[in-house]
Each structure stands twice: as C-alpha cells, then as structure tokens.
C-alpha cells in the first residue's frame, strides 16, 4: 500500500508503508486536517516559516508524527527534549552536534551563552550551507519558560538571527498564550492536534495490541468494557493501554477455565467489572505498582484487601499517639470557643446565631485545618484519653514524632520554644480509621459528630448529618 502525500502540492512523495509502523500510517492517513497542514507548512526545499508551535493533549501523537516525518523524509533535524536541558548549554550542544557533528559542539565554550551559540552556528553554516531546511524540534517546550528569559524569543526568530534556513518546532501540552513574553515576541504558526474520539479512533488504536491467541473481536469487546469503566475518568492513550495490558489475563480467566465461551460477553463482563473498579482505586492511582498488581491477580483466589503503598492505610502508631492525633484533629477543626462546651462537665449554652450568620460562607472542613497552641492540644488530650496520664517527656516526644511523620505540621519558626503551634495534616477518614482501632467510647463519637454540626453552617445539611452520626455509631 502506498500513500501519496502532497508537500505543498509541488512534489508528491510516495512512502512505502512497510517501513512505517501501523500507528504512523493511521495518523498520516487520517482525515484530520492538521497533519496535512503541518506537512504543507514545513517545506524542506524552500523557505519555511521560522517557528511553528504544536499543542495538544498527552499521547495525541505530536512527537511521533513530527519525528516520523523527519525520519522518513530524511530531513536534517535536531530533536531536543527540554526536560533534559537543565541549562541552556545542553540545548546548544545537542543542536550543534546534530547539525554539524560533535567537533562543532566541542567548540562551544564552557557555560555557553546564547551569543556564543549564534556566532558558532553562523560560522558553521557558512562553512556548510544548507541545501534543505534544517529543523530544531523542542519537545515539552513549556520547560523553556523557566530557562533564561531571552532563550524562547531568540529561538522563535532564530532564522533571522543566524541568517540560515532553519525552522524551530515547539511541541507542548500548554496553550501558546501562556508562553508569550511580556513585551511580545515573534508569533509562531499554531497547530492543534485534536484528541481521539472514543468510537472511531481510540478503540481502533487500542485493538492493535490484541493477543495472537484470541480473536480481534474478543479483544475489541474487552476494550469496550474497559473504556466503559475508564473513559469518563481518563482519556490518556498511554494509561488506557497500560490498564488494558495489565487486566487482559484476568478477563480471559473464565475462557481458560472453560466457564464461558467467547460469545458470552455478559458473563465475561460480570467477571471483569469489579476487578476494573478495584484497578481504578489502586493501579490507576499508582498506589500499587503494576508488578504487585499482577502478583495479586495470580495468587488471588479469595478476595483479600490489597496492600497499598499509601502510608495512611497501614500505619501503626503507639497508643497515646493515636489519642494525641485525635485531639489534634479536634483542635484543628473545632473553633476554640466550643472547647468549653465539649470538654467540660458543666457548660453553658453557645449562642449559635451570630456565629452562623457571620461565617456563612464556608465551614472549616472546606477551608483547612487551623493552627492551635500546644497547651490547647494537651488540654483536649487529657479530656479525651480514658486514663490518667502524667505529663512526662515520653508523651511530649510522641508529639515531635508525629511531626516527623508529617501527620502534624509545625506552624511558625523552629525557634519559638515556649509555645509552639501545630496543625493537623490528616483527613477525617484517617482519624475515623484510627479511632476504630482504639477502644473509643460513644462520647468521642459524639464529639466528632458535634464538630461536624457546628462546622456545617448550612441548615439543610442536618439531615445528612443525622445519617453521618448514625454511620459513626455503626463503626
């Protein structure tokens, strides 16, 4: 099969498809306008526009298409990934060695400036003048904004500065408006790579990975099931491919065991769907590595809970540390004026009305934890813990270990020794998990529930609150 590609209509170049991967055939053949546009805008034998900016989501084929055009047409190009270039000297070195050989790059002084690069480039190009347009491809160009401020505007007009037929192609995920310097610069041509549509393109591309021992139709139905679960969350082609590869063996399990035939799609779906939901909570979030996931699948006959990487699920704390953490949470999320009501035996009524009206906007749970002094923490701790505790150094040292574990964070300077302030950095779910382990009396649950009441200023949340309280009692 041969593809005719019109390069500005002047030359038709016939590409032999055996050399190109299926993916690039698909892309070049697709009716999407932008790829034709790019090929017409960059012309190797004549002058081309000094700079081109290509943007689009991840894994939409930007680098792949540009690099395969360069390779297949054998154009002189220098491909640089801006993440690798921590200093601009590395970028200059790579460009010069790609165009003029490593000897030219060796002529660059140490810590070369842009001026040295341009001067050397001019010298080299006058020695070996360009018969074709030279291309500099800068991948992940958003990193260039953090390098020298003059690098980006200078590269955009490089053709004018070095007086040579060179084009700079920038590839990025982020739109051009975020790149433009304050005083303006030479505006490049903008091209967009659109994302894949679910039905036509995405299923087609993902089906290319099909396993040889199963039919493509089976794989296509598997892909459809996978997309049904994951498409509303993520459209990144790389992630979807990774998930497809990881879970296919589990999908084929009933077929291997003989429990179902290839046409029993419903049965296969019932088997794989809960598995995919679990994958969304673990492998998708990188809580579990893919090796661990595959291991799990092999020895999983009974539904065991997955050991996740996240520290919060299986952290082991000493007895008093748990109470300290609970006390810290209450101190962070309850305002100080409610302490009297909660923690004293005899208390007065709290006037809720002014409080409600003033802070109508958002509750503490939305704004984040507030800092509290050490004294308040100890006061709440003593009222929460169920036995008499002496204020020894071992209790206080547990506070500093909680800070080291980053479950509490210290607010303010280190040298504030007399009254340090802390903030609780864990979420309600973690606290509930901890309080489950500790033999917690009903009063504590009420304290937590009441803190939810006081914090939620909006009246209509009371109904949901009652369900929350009852849920807590069920723990």
């Amino acid at each position, binding site marked *: 099969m041969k593809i005719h590609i*019109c390069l500005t*209509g*002047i030359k038709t170049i016939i590409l032999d498809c055996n050399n190109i991967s299926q993916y690039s055939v698909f892309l070049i053949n697709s009716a999407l*306008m932008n790829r034709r*546009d790019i090929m*017409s*805008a960059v*012309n190797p034998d*004549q*002058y*081309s*526009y000094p700079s081109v900016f290509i*943007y*689009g*989501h991840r894994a*939409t084929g930007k680098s792949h298409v540009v690099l395969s055009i360069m390779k297949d047409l054998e154009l002189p190009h220098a491909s640089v990934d801006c993440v690798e270039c921590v200093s601009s000297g590395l970028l200059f070195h790579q460009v010069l060695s790609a165009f003029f050989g490593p000897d030219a790059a060796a002529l660059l002084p140490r810590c070369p*400036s*842009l*001026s040295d690069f*341009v*001067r050397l480039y001019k010298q080299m190009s006058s020695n070996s003048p360009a018969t074709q347009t030279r291309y500099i491809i800068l991948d992940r160009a958003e990193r260039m904004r953090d390098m*020298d401020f*003059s690098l980006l*505007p*200078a590269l955009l007009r490089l053709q*004018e*500065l070095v007086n040579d037929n060179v084009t700079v192609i920038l590839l990025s*995920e*982020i*739109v*051009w*408006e*975020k790149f433009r310097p304050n*005083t*303006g*610069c*030479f*505006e490049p*041509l*903008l091209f*967009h790579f*659109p*994302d894949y*549509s679910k039905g036509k393109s995405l299923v087609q591309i993902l089906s290319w990975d099909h396993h040889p021992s199963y039919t493509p139709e089976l794989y296509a139905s598997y892909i459809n099931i996978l997309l049904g679960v994951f*498409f*509303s*969350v*993520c*459209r990144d082609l790389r992630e979807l491919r990774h998930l497809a590869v990881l879970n296919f063996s589990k999908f084929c399990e009933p077929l291997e065991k003989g429990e179902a035939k290839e046409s029993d799609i419903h049965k296969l779906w019932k088997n794989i769907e809960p598995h995919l939901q679990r994958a*969304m*909570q673990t492998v*998708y*979030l990188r809580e579990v590595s893919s090796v661990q996931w595959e291991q799990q699948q092999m020895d999983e006959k009974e539904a065991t809970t997955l050991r996740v990487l996240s520290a919060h699920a299986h952290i082991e704390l000493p007895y008093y540390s748990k109470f300290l953490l609970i006390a810290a949470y209450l101190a962070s999320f309850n305002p100080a004026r409610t302490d009297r009501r909660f923690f004293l035996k005899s208390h007065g009524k709290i006037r809720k009305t002014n409080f409600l009206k003033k802070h109508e*906007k958002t509750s503490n*749970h*939305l*704004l*984040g*934890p507030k800092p509290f002094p050490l004294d308040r923490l100890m006061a709440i701790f003593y009222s929460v813990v169920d036995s008499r505790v002496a204020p020894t150094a071992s209790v206080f040292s547990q506070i500093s270990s909680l800070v080291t574990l980053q479950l509490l964070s210290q*607010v303010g300077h280190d040298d504030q020794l007399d009254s340090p302030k802390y903030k609780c950095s864990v979420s309600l779910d973690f606290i509930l998990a901890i309080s489950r382990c500790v033999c917690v009396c009903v009063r504590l649950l009420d304290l937590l529930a009441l803190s939810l009441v006081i914090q939620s200023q909006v009246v209509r949340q009371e109904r949901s609150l009652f369900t929350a309280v009852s849920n807590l009692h069920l723990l």
Partner: protein
Amino acid sequence: VQDRCGCVLMMLCDGVCVQAQKLLRERLCHQKLPDQPVGLDSQYKHLLELLRRTAVHGESNSVLIVGPRGSGKTMLLGCVLRELMSLKEAQKNVLLVELNGLLQTDDKIALKEITRQLHLENVVGDKVFGSFAENLAFLLEALKKGDKSSSRPVLFVLDEFDLFAHHKNQTLLYNLLDVSQSAQTPVAVLGLTCRLDVLELLEKRVKSRFSHRQIHLFSSLSFAQYLDVVRAQLSLPPDFPDPKFSDEWNHSVTKLCEDKTVEEILRRNFNGSKDFRSLHSLLFLAVSRVSVSHSTLREADLIEAWRLISVDSKANVLHGLSILELCLIIAMKHLNDTYDGEPFNFQMVHNEFKKFIQRKSHSIHKFEKPVVMKAFEHLLQLELVRPVDSGVCKVQREYQLMRLMLEHGQVMEALQRYPQCPTDVKQWALSAFG
C-alpha cells in the same frame, strides 16, 4: 502526441508552480527586504538623512526607532542601510556593529561582541583577550583617539534596545552615548525597540546624553490601502519567467480581493492588528495550500487559513478533557459565580461535585476522592487552574487556594462543542448557583 503535449504542459506547470511558491514564500516567511517600504516614506527619508550625515560628513548622532512588534523597524533599517552602502564614500569607510538585546544579555558579552566585530587588536581569530575593564578601556581609547576628519565612522545598531537598559549600571549605553556626544570618532547609535516608554528605563545620566530623537512607526494605513498591500504582496512581479502564468495568477488574485467573504476576513484581520506580520502569517497559510492540482488561490484557502488563526486554543484543550475533569471545571465555574471570583481549593470543588452527584446526576457515578484528586491534578498540569501564590506552600494539597483560568463564556461554549456530553451535566452547568 496529445498525451506528450499534456505531459510537457504538466511539467511546465510544475516548474512554474515551484517558482511562484518560492517567490511568495521568500516574501512572506523569509522576510526578504522589499524594494521600498510601504507607508513609511517620511521616516525613511529622516533616517537616511541622519545616517548620511554620520557616514559622509562625520557627524555623531543617536536615534531611537520605536514601534510595536511587526511594524517594520528592522525592515526599515535594512532598507536604509542597503541604500546607504550603495553610496561610494559610505561603502569604503563605514564600520557596522550589530548587537541584539536577546543575544547579548550582559555588558561583558556585548563588549566582547563589539570588539570582535570591529576587529580590534585584542582579538585573535574568535577569542577576545582581557577582562571587562581592560576591554572597555581599550575600546574607548580606540574610539576617543579619532576625530572628524581622519577616522572611520562607526554605526552601532542595538536591536531590542530596552533589554540593554536592564544591564547593570547601563554601562554600555552610557559609554556609547557619551562617545556620541563628544568630539571624537563619528559614531551613530541606533536603537530599535517595541516599548513606547523606553526613555523612562534610562538612567538620568544616560538620558541626558541621548539626543531624544525618536522615529515612530505607527501604521497609518486605511483599509483600502491595506487591500492594495494584500494585492501587491500576493502578485507575482513583472519579471517572472512565465508571463502567461503570472498574468493568470495576478488576475485571479485581483478577483479574489474583490470577493465579499475575503474582504470580510481581511477587514477582521485589519481590525485586529494593522501590522504586516499577522497579515503574512494569514497569507502564508493560504498560499501553502496551493498545489499542482489547484494552482490558483481560492477563497476557500483564505477561509480555512482564517479559521486556523482565529480558533480559541483553550476551547480546543477543553474538548479533549474527560467527563470527570469537565464536571470539576463546571463545579469551579459555579464556585466563581457564587463567590464572585474568590479563590477556592480542592475541598470546595469536591464538595460541589458531591452535591451534584447526590442530587442531580444519573449518568455520572460516585468516584473516590483520590480519583477526583488525580483529575484535578491533570487540570493543574494543563494550567487551566493555577495556584494563587505560585511559590512552594506549606499548606496541604487539598487546601491550597487556586483560581480558574477560564471564563464563563469559554466554559459554556466548550460544553456546546463537547462530544456526547450527558444532558444532566449540561443542565447542571446551565443552572444558576449549583
């Protein structure tokens, strides 16, 4: 015979098309100097006169050429220098030093560059010897020793002049302008800049040595003149090798410029910016669609080129988001509407999203908080959401305050174009206050 004639015609057409494309491309993207700059006659005469006085009569001058990006400063200077160098006396004597603020980011580098371009004695091959102080002393001595009658005039061209004003102490500018004020080697200092307030950037002692001569390049073209310029840019010159082809081409271009839709497009471009650079990029995209199969410029080409230029890039990005990410953006939009644009954090967005899931949604099922967090971080990476204080913050990720970088109108328009958007999501977006 007919077949062979047909082939020959095709080949001729092929070759002629190539030449036409080459010429137009050179004009549009290589920025070849035109024979005479359009619409800049008085500025051209002024500048030429000034430089002639330096080059021929040995008078020292300094001038700033000020104009917005793409208004033709470098082009004007190029044309003037080209004419100047055609004069016999200037050609023999004048030394040209070209500096650029983007390349010479420091006075040290700038000084080395000047020394290199003037081929002074402390340059061997490419390397300049000596420290900054020594180089400066050497250069100033070389410039001070001359006088009007016996030394060669030097033209200093400083591109991106405003960047030189950011160097430490403005040493270079001070010394150059100092030389231009005293009776030494005839020196002309030409600055090109896009900033109108460039004089405010100069220090007092530098500003006093500057002659306060500014040439402004503000385009004064009317729309009719603009159309003439378009026609001239697209037409092939009379010395084109194939007169038949060039006549046909020019004729089609004239007809194209009279077409209503094309005029509308050009008027919209003209209303956006009058400078030639944006015009060139529009024409370039149109011209690059010309091929052997259709060898004239058609209005469809221009319409397509205009569509490519005027598309909103953020709308394109929104098109490729997943449903969950789109719901988060709608939640943020609602927060902006309710709280008048105050910054929000992830917890608030998640709260809004949960309210939507519990009450109104049928198609979106409940996602775990970490999954929603991952979607939110993807939006952060795409820079659709930005943290308010962009430094490193000691606040937890969920509570860090953010702003949405999209407008109400952009979000609503993106929803219209979104493929297979569930109706309950659309309804939620259109409802006021969540």
